[in-house]
């Protein structure tokens, strides 16, 4: 599957371009919509968790601690919400043109990567204004990103294929993503999570990722905690293998059902 996808990389690039071209068309502020959502989430979270609930984040400002987690989380959430329905929403094209179907969800991930780059630049600006700059361990960022990409790709391939046959998946995604966010230490640090639920937190592949992003991005900068990342690494690889196997097993039926 991936080899076929590589030979059609021009198509993936053009899918990304297509969606980017379409996205802000007929909107007034256009590209500003790429910056607004993470900032708005951050502002609201600061109000609720920092000022009202008074969540403890140690010596670092709450906004930095949260933004370091929001960057990878927003990528994860937006990839899922737009990647999972991507095959069904391209039904017209799908039933008339032969092309590797995986280009559709992968193209969506490309779009989310652009958003990620924007959110990451906002974080960098914040780190030098509100916080104490970026530590050297921030170089781990791309490594963690690749790990997250593997996880996201596995989930999206699996879920987008199932969604073709049972649209329940698409309907469940917004709710699922929302619940997942509350059970991942995004808007609060892992140290604030209830002790009794600690096991669930550690089994959640996003926990290790989000905490590792925090660790490497916030001064003084620590190496990612391998024991925390282990469920993520195993989970991502298993999901990617399963997801790409299932996707390529059923992709020839998409045009009949969609």
């Amino acid at each position, binding site marked *: 599957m991936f080899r076929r996808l590589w030979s059609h990389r*021009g198509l993936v690039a053009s899918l990304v371009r297509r969606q980017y071209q379409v996205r802000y068309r007929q909107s007034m502020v256009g590209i500003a919509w790429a910056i607004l959502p993470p900032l708005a989430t951050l502002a609201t979270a600061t109000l609720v968790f920092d000022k009202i609930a008074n969540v403890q984040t140690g010596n670092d400002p709450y906004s930095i601690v949260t933004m370091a987690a929001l960057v990878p989380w927003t990528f994860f959430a937006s990839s899922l919400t737009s990647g999972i329905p991507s095959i069904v929403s391209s039904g017209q094209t799908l*039933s008339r043109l032969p092309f590797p179907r995986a280009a559709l969800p992968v193209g969506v991930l490309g779009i989310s990567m652009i958003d990620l780059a924007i959110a990451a630049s906002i974080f960098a600006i914040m780190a030098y204004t509100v916080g104490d700059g970026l530590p050297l361990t921030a170089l781990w960022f791309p490594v963690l990103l690749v790990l997250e990409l593997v996880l996201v790709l596995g989930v999206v391939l699996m879920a987008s294929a199932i969604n073709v046959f049972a649209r329940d998946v698409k309907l469940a995604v917004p709710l699922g993503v929302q619940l997942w966010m509350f059970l991942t230490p995004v808007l609060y640090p892992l140290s604030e999570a209830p002790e009794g639920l600690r096991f669930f937190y550690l089994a959640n592949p996003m926990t290790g990722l989000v905490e590792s992003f925090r660790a490497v991005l916030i001064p003084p900068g620590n190496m990612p905690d391998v024991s925390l990342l282990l469920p993520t690494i195993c989970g991502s690889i298993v999901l990617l293998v399963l997801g790409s196997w299932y996707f390529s097993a059923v992709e020839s039926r998409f045009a009949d059902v969609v």
Partner: protein
Amino acid sequence: MDIIETHSVTKNYRVGVGRARVREMVPPPFDRGLAKVFPNWWFKDTFNALEDVCLSIPSSSSVGLVGHNGAGKTTLLKVLAGVTAPTTGTVQTRGRIAGLIDAVVGFHPELTGKENISFLGSMHGFKRRDMAAKVQSISEFAEIDEMLDTPVKRYSAGMSARLGFATIAALEPEILLIDEILAVGDANFQQRCARWLDEYRTQGGTLLFVSHNLSLMRSMTQKVVWLDHGKVVQEGPTATVLAEYGRAMERRSSDAAVGGKNQRATKKLMKATGMNRWGAGGARIQEVHVGEPTNDSLTVTINYEASNIEQGYFCLGFVGEGDNEVGAAVSDSVMLREGGGTIQCEIDSLGLRSGIYFPVAAIISTDGTVQDRWRLDRAVVIERDQNLLPDGFGPVEISSEWSGGKGDQVEMPRLRSVE
């Protein structure tokens, strides 16, 4: 190997909408197991859109696909294009395939014409630079120059169809699948498409063509495959298959007319329009015998019944493809024999171009009332050995003498020979 080969292709579809498709969800190694264990559940609500289709289409040929709606023509194109996989059987194709399936290419409505051209190109493996070089010629062919930077959703149906055809044409496919595209667009554009397709074929392209327009099919293809209920009924030279197909088509519609619902509708219509078959003083056509058309001449014998009507005239009309009334031979006013009789019509020169025509016989009383009008269930097939003429010139052959050019006889290039 031929450029397209299918071996016993069967495509099974499931009917029913609105439910989750649990059976399709099961991935390959397990689905066969489930089908074995629960065959009743597995094959419930299924039908074969294609059944045991074996085709082999040699390179640089052009082949037509005919059949009623739901015969499996579009499904076959989809299977050949690789959009969907056959349930059983194999499809092998060589070379780049491009197609207009359902007469739509899969444009994105929000993108502009130019963006869609490059998008469609990338779908077929073209680089952006390559497509950028083609934009000018595509927009000239499609005549949408001033609309290139407008989203396709603002295009008229004809414009997007033109852009679709022009883009597909620019992709230089080795195999071209076309589904009723020439049904859209104005006559001028259709002409240009037909000319382009001619050139495409002479340059060695392979064309697979679905259309209900039989005269277009006759001029564009050498071979026709006739599908019915997913099976290949007949496959062979265009003239032979289309003649058979035309007869079957007419048999089918007359069969349908016998059915209760249609008969009632016919009676109702007759009442409403003042036609009468059985009324007092009416005449009725009993039997029509149509001879084989030979050398453009045709003999038709009509047996009629008449009572309380002394005088009337007969009319023998022809209805062409697409229900177009083409023309009629009309008798002088004749004295009708009380009880019934026979009248013979000799047509020296039918004056019709190649095609399938359905005779319509009528008895009309002198006051102009139609006493009986009967469209026959047997088609007259005209086959002329003549030059290829694209669609849009009508069915009437105007007898003419041409002179000039080199010598007295103008030598026209013969593009098609009728088998």
